[in-house]
Each structure stands twice: as C-alpha cells, then as structure tokens.
C-alpha cells in the first residue's frame, strides 16, 4: 500500500473512532442510569409519593405532573403548529414575503435558549396575562403566580417550531399529483386539504407531536421559573396549581438532597424513568417516520 493510501485508511478510520466514541457515551449514560436505578424500579416506585424528605418512597406525583403538563402543552401547540404549517405550505402564495418572515421567525424561535422561554413565561403569562386575570376576577391571587397552565403554555411556545417543521415536511411529502387530481374533480381547496392532503400527512404530523412531547417532557429550565415545585403533598387540583415534575425532581434530588447516600438510588431510578420515557417516544417517532418514508418511496 502506498503511503497515501495508508494515510487515507488511517484518517477515515479516525472518523470511525469519533462515531464509536459517541455510541460509547450514549451507552455509558444509559448503562449508568440502568445500573444505578434498576434495582429500585418497581410498581411501587412509580405509584407512590416521595417520603421522608425524598429519601424513600416513589415518584408518582412527579410522573403525574409531567404527564398533565405535557398533555396540556400538546393540546395547545398542535392546532397552532399544524395550522401554521398549513399556512406555510398550502396557503401562502409562492415567494410570499410574509411566509418567508414566518419561516425565519420559526427558525429563530427554535434557537432561543430554554431558560429565556422561562423568563418569557414569567414575564408574559404570569406577570402580564395572569395579573390582569386576577384583577378582572376580583383581585385574589390565583393566576398571577407560576402554575400548571402557564408552564404548559410556555412549553407550547418552546415546542412550536418542532411541530411546525415536522408538519410542513409531512405536507410537502404529499404528492402534487394527488392535489391536482382532487382539484380536477371539482374539490375546493379546503376539501382537498381535509380529504387528501391532511390524511396523507398524518404519520409526519404524529412524528412531530411525539418529538414535541419528548422535548417538552424533558425541559426543566422553563418550568423552573413558571410553576414546578420541589415537593407538594397533593396532586395539582387546578390549572393554577404548582406541580411536581420528573426533570425538576431529578435536579432537586441531585443538588439539594439532605441525605445524598439515601437519595442516590431513588435519583438513579428517576433518571432511568425519564430516559426510558424520552427514548421510547423518540424511537416510536423514528419508526413511524422511516415507515412512512418507505411507503412514500415505493
């Protein structure tokens, strides 16, 4: 082999090492969580509340809070995100300035740090909308403080770009032929949208929703400022209640535990649950996407 070929083999081999390193890191992180948390994982752990200053018991309230939070977020973000994507891909005229501005805005929104979304939630939802609602409702402090609704709406704004981008891509994969066929049969634009385009885009829209849920469920910085609580004896009773959350629970247990050694197994088990949740969601999204791509190309 010539020296040039040897060098080629060497360097391309090194790029392979980088990939192996990344796979290794992923395995170490997962392995770490599994090794540390596996033994504590049980039905009881998932279904009971923390006890004795988080050194015993389970994570049910955090699991519940995360679920309700992401559900509310999804209800808020999906219609807005999907309609925005419909506007961009179906209604905006080609070369539209306005649509171009929307696209730039969405791109920039995706790059805004999550902690800034927290500040935004605090400044807009809590301080602006909430305080005005309280004033209108008679002055009692209820909405003018961090809580479940404001946290979920903050996350909805944060995940908006995820939904818009995924939906727009899904709409674009519906062949133009099918649109022409529908219009040529005398369907109106909205009939074509509802009966031909959207049904074809369902897998892609679903992928977007799942990715948004995965992202929303794991974000801690925004809810830190808009409603997550360290410990609550009761489950949230209203949309204005504070709530517990898996990610925030992890943060608190990792950094503020009174008894580190007693907390450690619970902490690992919590991380394991959070990771399992995120990975499952993402794997489902990956599978749906690759299936629908295969269908589209066949």
């Amino acid at each position: 082999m010539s020296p040039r070929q040897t060098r080629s083999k060497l360097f391309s081999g090194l790029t392979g090492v980088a990939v192996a390193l990344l796979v290794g890191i992923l395995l170490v992180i997962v392995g770490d969580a599994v090794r540390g948390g596996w033994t504590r994982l049980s039905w009881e752990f998932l279904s009971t509340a923390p006890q004795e200053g988080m050194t015993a018991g389970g994570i049910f309230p955090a699991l519940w809070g995360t679920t309700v939070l992401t559900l509310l977020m999804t209800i808020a973000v999906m219609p807005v995100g999907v309609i925005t994507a419909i506007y961009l891909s179906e209604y905006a005229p080609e070369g539209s300035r306005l649509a171009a501005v929307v696209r730039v805005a969405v791109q920039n929104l995706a790059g805004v740090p999550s902690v800034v979304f927290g500040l935004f939630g605090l400044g807009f939802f809590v301080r602006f909308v909430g305080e005005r609602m309280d004033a209108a409702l008679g002055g009692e402090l209820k909405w003018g403080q961090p809580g479940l609704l404001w946290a979920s709406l903050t996350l909805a704004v944060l995940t908006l770009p995820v939904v818009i981008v995924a939906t727009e891509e899904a709409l674009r994969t519906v062949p133009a032929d099918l649109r022409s066929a529908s219009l040529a049969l005398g369907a109106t634009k909205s009939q074509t949208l509802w009966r031909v385009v959207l049904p074809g885009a369902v897998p892609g829209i679903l992928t977007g929703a799942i990715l948004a849920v995965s992202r929303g469920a794991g974000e801690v910085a925004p809810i830190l400022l808009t409603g997550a609580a360290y410990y609550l004896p009761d489950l949230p009773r209203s949309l204005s209640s504070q709530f517990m959350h898996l990610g925030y629970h992890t943060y608190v247990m990792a950094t503020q535990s009174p008894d580190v050694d007693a907390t450690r197994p619970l902490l690992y088990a919590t991380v394991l649950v959070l990771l399992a949740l995120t990975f499952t969601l993402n794997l489902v999204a990956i599978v749906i996407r690759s299936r629908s791509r295969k269908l589209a190309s066949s």
Partner: protein
Amino acid sequence: MIALTIQAVGLSGIAAVLLIVIFVGREALPILRGDGEAGFDTLFLPQPLRPGKPPGFMWQPVGEVPKLSMIPLLLGTLKVTLVAMVVAVPVALAAALFTSEFAPRRLRELLKPVIELLASIPSVVLGFFALMTLAGWAQSTFGLPSRLSALVAGLAMAIAIVPVVFTVAEDALTAVPRSYREASLALGATPWETAWRVVLPAAAPGVFAACVLGFGRAIGETMIVLMASGNAAIVSLSLSDSTRTMSATIAAEMGEVVFGGTHWSVLFFIGLQLFALTLALNWVAGAFVRRTLRRLGGTA
C-alpha cells in the same frame, strides 16, 4: 374566511418571537432605561468593592450593597462554551464525515437514529451524569482540586451540542453532489483526500454554520451548567475553577428574588442578552446555510 383564519394563526411564529422580545424586555426595562439602581455602568464597568481596595468586577446580588457585575458571568459562559466547542466540534465533524463519506449505507441508516437519541437526552440528565459520574472521573484523571468546574460542565455540554453540530454538518456534506466525489476519485485521489480536500471545502459554509449553531446552543444551555459548573461567580481564567454562567444565574436566582426589584430586572436583562446573542448567531448560521445550498446548486 378560512384562508384568513389560517393566515392569522400562521403568524403565530412571528407573534411568539415578538412577545418574547417585548415581555422579557419589559421586565428588563429599568436596566435598559438606566433609571433604576443598576445600569450599564454597574453591570459592565469596574465598581468599588470594599473600602481601600481597587474597583473590580463582582457578582453578589444579595447583600447590603448588591454587586451586579456581568463580567464574571460573561467570562464563565465563555469558558464553559469554549471547552464544549473545542471538544464537540472535532468529534461531531469527524462523525459527520464518517457518516456521509465512509460509512456503508446500512450503517448510516443506523447511525442517524443513534445521534437522534443522543440529542433527545434531556439536559437535566446530562447534568446529572456530569455531577454523579463525569465529575469524579475528571477529578481523578486530570488531578483537579475540586469536583465541579468549567471543565466538567464544558465536557458534559459537549455531549449536548455534538448532535446539533453533527446534524447540520452532515446535511451540508450530503448536499455535495456525487459528481464532485467521482471527479476527485477518478483523478486518483484517495477517499480521505476526496473527503478532506473536495467534499469538506465544498460544504464549508454549512459546516461553519453547524459550529455557529452549536455555539448558540451552548451559550443558552442551562441545566448542565447549573448542576456541573460549581456556580461560583469569580473572575478567573482557569478551567479548573468553579464557574457561574449567565443561564445558570437566571435559573438559580430567579426563585429567590423580589418580584420587580433590581435583581429581578437584571436577571431579565441577562435573558435579553442571551436572546440577542442566540438570535445573532442563528442569523449568521442561516446566512451560511443558504450560501452552501446556493453554491451547491440546491434551493434555499
């Protein structure tokens, strides 16, 4: 009518960005106007610390005389971000080259989901990993004086930004037409020479954009630094010192401030700076991505 409603909702993206500027800006207004207790001078210029000592930079927001210098936080953010970039960029670019140039098709189809999984790890989990595992390993390996430092936070943050850099860079590399590669190989270049001298330069603006986006992500990353940097707001260039970043300051202190006070406004002002920084970086990256696509004959 329907079309009008759809268009109105379609403006949500613009509305979101505007609302963020307006309502984060509104809380930071006392700082921007300079009519509160703190202004640009207290935040960025040296201030008297103790009687008899030269003026300096200090972040100590709670106390009789709050000291609110941005300098330790800016420096801390820069330190952690630089560590993350120095580690993440070579690894991410190498992995992107491997995926686009050297990996067999099957492997490539497998690698992308793996990177997606890596990207999906919540940053609080990476912070936890840094705190529980990485910190101890780094301390014993590098012989550091303390467990938590800019170095540990930067290493953990590298894991968070590798997927960002990888994804954008890989897209840019894949966009390079096959004819470039065939031309180079037909001239007797080795696969590595083709990748390094033909494909990478052709995709350069996109690869640069990938790095800029990674940088933006690192500056705003919060939970990892909050958990792994040690959070001491000191002016120091050493990577092994405990460090406090802008983002972590917001997250750590927002829970304890008085609604509407000076400290409160300063925290929102820090948020505004983060927003402006990432916006600028995004804009730069966007311009470079468009340039790559135009250069390679695609459409932006």
